[in-house]
């Protein structure tokens, strides 16, 4: 499943006084099977961009190719329903979108909508529940009796139940504790290693550095960079100009480098960093 954007524009409420130019000339080629981070300030166009991948939004100019699907200005969203199964989008705080009285009903809603029988959908529900780290006893419970972190897992299970080839996640770990966030990211990494393309919108650069291969930087509706994570974190001047929160490890290295050390800022592993600092003190 390759994802290609060609000269994509999106203007909200075009030709009205409220018109807002959210995407400007976006060209992008996301590799199949990659785990790509999408970063940028609030309002930079990240959410608008990802909603084009499953055709929740249509471009106001340009086109998007998702494998054999072509999404363009003139398409009707109804003809794009099969695309929605291929590209699963998990919004921010997806737990607010749970609506059924039991977890089972909530998870099987999607597969049934795409033609699965009750039994098939139930088998899938059991499988995905296990994937997100919950056992079958949860099936009969109400999603509203769970903690925030558990609700988030259920909502994500609902998307996984559609077995999408592309998984798009908008800030999936916001509000989770460090352990919950780690488990969630390990799950996405596992799904990615099974060959699925994962796109992760995140403000947490620690996660980007640790889990992603590539990174797309959005700024004022444009794609400013599309590089490997290592490359991005070596571009220290550019990173500082973005005024994002650097990963703790990167900002620590930059502070040391300001004061006489000479350490590669793209180091991700704390043990490697300790070795390098030790080496430079001993030299």
């Amino acid at each position, binding site marked *: 499943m390759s994802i290609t954007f060609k000269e994509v524009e999106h203007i909200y409420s075009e030709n009205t006084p409220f018109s807002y130019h959210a995407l400007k000339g976006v060209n992008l080629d996301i590799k199949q099977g990659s785990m790509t981070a999408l970063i940028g300030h*609030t309002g930079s166009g990240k959410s608008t961009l990802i909603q084009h991948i499953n055709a929740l939004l249509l471009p106001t100019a340009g086109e998007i190719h998702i494998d054999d699907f072509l999404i363009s200005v003139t398409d009707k969203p109804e003809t794009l329903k099969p695309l929605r199964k291929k590209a699963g989008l998990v919004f921010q705080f997806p737990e607010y979108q749970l609506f059924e009285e039991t977890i089972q009903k909530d998870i099987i809603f999607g597969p049934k909508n795409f033609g699965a029988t009750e039994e098939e959908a139930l088998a899938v529900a059991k499988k995905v529940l296990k994937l997100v780290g919950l056992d079958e006893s949860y099936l009969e419970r109400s999603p509203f009796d769970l903690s925030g972190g558990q609700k988030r897992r259920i909502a994500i299970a609902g998307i996984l139940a559609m077995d999408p080839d592309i998984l798009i996640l908008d800030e999936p770990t916001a*509000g989770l*504790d460090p352990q919950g966030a780690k488990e969630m990211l390990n799950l996405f990494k596992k799904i990615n290693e099974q060959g699925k393309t994962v796109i992760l919108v995140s403000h947490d650069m620690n996660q980007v550095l640790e889990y992603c291969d590539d990174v797309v930087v959005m700024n004022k509706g444009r794609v400013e960079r599309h590089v490997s994570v290592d490359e991005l974190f070596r571009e220290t001047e550019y990173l500082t100009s973005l005024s994002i*929160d650097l990963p703790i490890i990167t900002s620590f290295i930059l*502070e040391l480098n300001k004061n006489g050390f000479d350490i590669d800022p793209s180091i991700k592993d*704390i043990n490697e960093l*300790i070795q390098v600092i030790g080496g430079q*003190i001993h*030299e």
Partner: protein
Amino acid sequence: MEKIIEIKDLSFEYKEDVKTIDNISFSIEKGTYTTILGHNGSGKSTIAKLLMGLLEKKSGHIIVGGIELTEETLSEVRSQIGIVFQNPDNQFIGATVRDDIAFGLENTCVEPSLMDGIIEEYAKKVNMYEFLDHEPTKLSGGQKQRVAIAGILAMSPSIIILDEATSMLDPKGKKEINSLVHQLNKDKDITILSITHDIEEAALSDYVVLLSDGHIIDTGKPEDVLMKQKEIESLALDVPFAYKISKGLQAQGIKVNNYIDREKLVKELCQLHSKK
């Protein structure tokens, strides 16, 4: 130092015989910045709600500013505390920023002629003066939380509780709120009680209460509590980054002190580097 919050043998149950808070005691000194640290579901937010009298304790004592919280003293205790919740969208009441800040004041018999002046003063304090007549829907998450704080400040509380108040904000919003809160703590001597699972925030506070499954695991200065690696990791938390680096370097035979504050560690490492 004067104790502003005292909690003694406090217990609370949502369901019978399942103790969410199990016989905890701790106290907080006036003017300090305290963090309550624990994983999701550890009981952190329940403590905040108990302090505000939003939940009724099963047993024990809560004393705020020398007054024991009871049904009779509820409003007296509440008037000392302001709370900022996690979701900025759930705490807006007014149709404009001005109305929102006014809401609390209207309930406290403030002379109407004085109200505008008070509202403007606190809007300025949180840098939201120019937004006074804006609609809340057009504000960013960080701006909404600042309005919530202005509304609280207008009630002149001596304590502000932050219940994961920045966890839904982007990095810019987080910075805005963190610097505002630290400034209030310094300038106005407001006691801050921050409920969080961010160990790096806890490392910069005056005092830490470490909570797990409704029990207090440890309390004390961050440099005492957060360096207990086994204890911290057993709670599914991570020790501060600076401490991991200090320990790793010591294992390599480098004589460096243990730190939880990254700035201090950088300083010492750079001194070692320049001496070589």
